[in-house]
């Protein structure tokens, strides 16, 4: 069964075609990678799915529900969470609050209730804090709960971004270059973590990544974009030997030489 179905999505910025009639399906519970050279349209693709941009034409559905026309917060509430290529934490807020913000849509507190200090709302807040801290424990971030987010080491910030995304209770998790700037060891740990997340939270994961070792290790399915076009799609073994992919990455000469 497909969690995400993208059909005929087209996006143009002025004269530049960022995505050209892309079709893409993501199977429930899978780990799928989107790869391609710089400027291929990968992040634009994520932005279209999450409602940051609207496609010029085409259709995007999450478990059959159409996403086109929805705002990013509405898409998030339907079950798509994401991380960002260049980390976008709430830099001056404590780590715990970063996670709590992501529960916004699931909490019911309104201003009158907050001002009256209603019991139900205090209870809800306690549970939210509990869940947030549990998520931090799960991600190994518990010791940093009171730390200001921008003071964390780089790799830890990346993990916090994932913890924050999990707090929205996503069905589909989009990771935009999760291994960027990480050491080989951190990348190995990331691979394990993604597997663990998928198992423990019943997630479907789509990731953009340049680290080919990670991509080949982790993904069951790969989509290759080049100049906004889907030039190949399939399991890792197939992609590895696809001449069009090698050409896109290494240039025409590389293929004829091979």
């Amino acid at each position: 069964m497909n969690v995400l179905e993208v059909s005929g999505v087209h996006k143009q910025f002025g004269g530049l075609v960022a995505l050209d009639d892309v079709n893409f399906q993501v199977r429930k519970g899978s780990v799928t990678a989107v790869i391609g050279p710089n400027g291929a349209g990968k992040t634009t693709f994520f932005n279209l799915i999450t409602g940051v941009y609207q496609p010029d034409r085409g259709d995007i559905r999450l478990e059959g529900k159409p996403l086109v026309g929805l705002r990013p917060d509405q898409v998030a509430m339907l079950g798509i969470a994401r991380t960002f290529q260049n980390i976008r934490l709430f830099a001056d807020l404590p780590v715990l609050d970063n996670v709590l913000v992501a529960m916004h849509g699931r909490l019911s507190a309104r201003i009158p209730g907050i001002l009256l200090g209603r019991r139900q709302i205090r209870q809800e807040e306690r549970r939210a804090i509990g869940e947030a801290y549990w998520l931090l424990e799960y991600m190994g971030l518990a010791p940093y709960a009171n730390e200001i987010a921008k003071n964390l080491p780089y790799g830890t910030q990346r993990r916090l971004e994932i913890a924050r995304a999990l707090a929205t209770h996503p069905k589909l998790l989009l990771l935009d270059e999760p291994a960027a700037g990480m050491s080989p060891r951190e990348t190995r740990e990331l691979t394990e973590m993604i597997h663990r997340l998928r198992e423990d939270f019943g997630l479907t994961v789509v990731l953009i990544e340049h680290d080919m070792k990670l991509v080949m290790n982790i993904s069951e399915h790969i989509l290759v974009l080049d100049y906004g076009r889907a030039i190949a799609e399939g399991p890792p073994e197939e992609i590895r030997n696809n001449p069009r992919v090698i050409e896109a990455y290494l240039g025409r000469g590389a293929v004829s030489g091979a």
Partner: protein
Amino acid sequence: MKDRMPRLRARLRQPRTQAMLLAAYTALSAAGLAFGGLSILWFLLLLVSLLLLYYSDLPRMVKWVWAGVVVAVLLPVCASNGSSYESFMEVATQMGIFVAMALGLNVVVGFAGLLDLGFIAFFALGAYTYAIFFSDQANHFIAGHHFPLSGDLFWLCLPVGLFVAALFGVLLGLPVLRVKGDYLAIVTLGFGEIIRIIFNNLDKPVNITNGAIGISSVQAPRFFGISLSFPHQFYYLVLVLLAIVLYAVQRLEHSRVGRAWKAVREDEIAAQAMGVPLVRTKLVAFAVGASFSGLMGVVFAAKQAFIDPTSFTMLESITILVMVILGGMGSLPGVVVGACLVTLLNIQLMPELTNWLNTLTTAGVINFPSALSPSKMQRLIFGIILILFAVFRPQGMIPAKTRRYDDAVLSRLAAEWRETAGGARRDGAHPAVPGYTSGHAAGQEGAKEGASL
């Protein structure tokens, strides 16, 4: 000697020692205020005791009660000794009004990060709401001779002023929040001016605001048959409202709503991607901030018994912004201190300094040109303050503090959550996670506590 310093320090850290020292200091400054000729200096020193109280390690409830006693009993009682009692209370009332407005602007600028340069417009809306219907002004455009309304209805007008301001906050927000940063500042500045100019010109074709002449003989509020007209009566009124505003802001800050405001301030795109609706969150911030301002506007009109558009100029908006920036954006104690200081500077220190210089000039001691008098240099002085703070202390006098949680409390809450999470998970978004429900040490602890609750 080396031995004694740490012991002294440990002693100072004890709440009991702190309470005693604080009590001594408060008593001293109060006595100074009562017998030291009612100088503004003693007044300031007494206010500093509240700041020390804030930094002390006393329990929260004690702090609130203590502060309440100081402002509600000690300050008025000590000031009542001299002939300038009412003028003192007038200054304190003004301070209270500005503190409440600064707290409102702090919601917009400090929490939600939306630079609003037209904040005084909401104050004007509250003030005119009261003034029009509680003087015979409304008779000009509403048939029958129903106005002025009785001062007993003042209490009803407080929430009305609040809602009118909040409504306009939303109306302004809807078109304006499409722009960000500097553009937002310019548009709000325009809005502030537009409101003032409308009030200035709405005396024709139908006379609603009486234009530049203003509205006079506004009814005084009545409280159980007593007509409020003395500054000390308004002082208590403002004190009660201020307490409510402080409580509200403080509650909101550490709630779902306050967190959303700060998330939007930190990163709009990330906040939205985490499910925070951008426009609604900003509108709520605008409305909440505006409502405090509108509330105080009603009090202002009632206190002055006369209002005209000159009380609501852009300089007033800037003054409130200076309070917030000077004190510390997003920091409640900071904003309170900033508002107190700027108000004092504005209505007490600068006029006094001007008077003093004038006396010297007329006495022939110095030749000080009146063009350079401090009262006329308000803009320059605020400008310099803003620049200095932007350069040397952008976080303000008392920077915002984040709330810290105790690790033990957090892990207890986490355990509690885990105990009950099974049933509460939304349509299986979190399926059973093997390895954490059974194997976690903290889980067992939580089970015991869960049973006792």
